[in-house]
């Protein structure tokens, strides 16, 4: 459909954190913009916009992707999990608990993406090695912590499963 300025909009249906939404978006609307600007899910961060930093990581059908490089129209019909969907009924996920216990957070900007990358890893591989953890979060840049406590936290979460 077109508006009076001649801009086309497309209807997309997304399941975000278990809730189904049908939204009218422009072709150039990115998934990260839908999440932050239309659904107010601002836990997903915008960083480099180029797929290098991972701060916009969400799970698309369970797989970590950079939501700054996914068109909303391309995500039509798929399931999205953001950081807001990781805790269940106000109970933090064990990965979130482990991040707190291991002081794996400083400024927090990379944390939502880190946790979603870790979540995807532990779902697929409940007992990863340190090398596997490092590889899984290699697409998530943290400029504060030096990664040591983050790796520790993910390994601790794996142990507590």
């Amino acid at each position, binding site marked *: 459909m077109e508006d009076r300025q001649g801009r086309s909009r497309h209807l997309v249906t997304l399941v975000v954190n278990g809730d189904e939404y049908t939204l009218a978006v422009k072709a*150039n609307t*990115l998934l990260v913009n839908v999440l932050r600007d239309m659904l107010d899910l601002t836990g997903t961060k915008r960083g480099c916009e*180029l797929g290098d930093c991972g701060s916009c990581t969400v799970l698309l059908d369970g*797989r*970590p992707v950079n939501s700054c490089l996914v068109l909303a129209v391309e995500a039509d019909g798929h399931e999205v999990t953001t950081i807001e969907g990781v805790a269940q009924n106000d109970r933090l996920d064990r990965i979130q608990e482990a991040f707190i216990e291991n002081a794996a957070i400083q400024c927090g900007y990379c944390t939502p993406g880190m946790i979603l*990358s870790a979540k995807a890893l532990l779902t697929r591989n409940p007992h990863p090695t340190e090398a596997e953890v490092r590889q899984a979060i290699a*697409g998530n840049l943290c400029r504060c912590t030096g990664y040591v406590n983050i790796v520790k936290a993910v390994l601790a979460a794996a142990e507590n499963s």
Partner: protein
Amino acid sequence: MASGRRGSPARRRRVGVKGRGFLFLYLPDFAYHVPGTPEEVVALLARSPGARVIAGGTDLLVKMKQGLVAPPALVSLKRLDGLKRIAPEPGGLFIGARVTLNELINSDLIRGKYASIAGAAAQMANNQVRHTGTLGGNLANAVPSADLPPILIALGARAVVLGPDGERRFPLEELFTGPGRTRLAEGEILTGVTVPEQETTGSTYLKFGLRRSGALAVVGVAVAVTMEGPVVRQARIVLGAVAPVPMRARAAEETVRGREFDRSLAEEAGVAAAAESRPISDIRGSAEYRRDLVRVFTRRALERAVRDGHV
């Protein structure tokens, strides 16, 4: 790149060095089409000049945000499930253009007989990009440092291309005509590759990047060898990131052919490959440095493929 010729809006956003504008990472609008069949994709492309195909989008959207390309329309491949296939066919294996890098890595069919393809994919980008980026995108973008072309060419892969006149297949190495340029004509799409049943006994891709993750190849070397006891009956050696297109190191291949393999023969091949490579100097490394990397990585790749088989 085709970009410079097109849209002025893209040019306006260019700031900074060499057209890489980082001030406004705004994605300009475009028309969006999602055809249901490959034939419809081809028909749409034929009547939409300047339209681009989108698969994973991890290269294209970045270029659009940087203002390097400004296609008026994107034609999505997302409904073409046939392009997601990894399927045996007579004489080899078909791998669809929409297969993601992580799907290559996790496919039993590929890990079985073509483990070196999975090995190359595992050295690419980062996990998020490997979940989205596709085989077809890595080939059709024709970046000189791309990681999949060298190993696929070494294994004898053929490109499968669909156009207004139907399907054609040709050796993958003929796909690339220059940086960002391919033989694909307007209205043609790459639907996949076929990799022949291997007579080779070993193959591998070795990459030197400046980081372990998320780094482009400074040099990439793929090797496929056919051994008869200690003798190299046949070898294909393909270099990435040291020429405008992935290049066969034919002098190096000749060096090893029919000779008994040992470390000094591998070194000799490395020296030959370095001499025939045509690297440039850029932000990732000087031409001189790259040439020496070609020598070392050709030697190591040969030793690995001879010793360890397909890895």
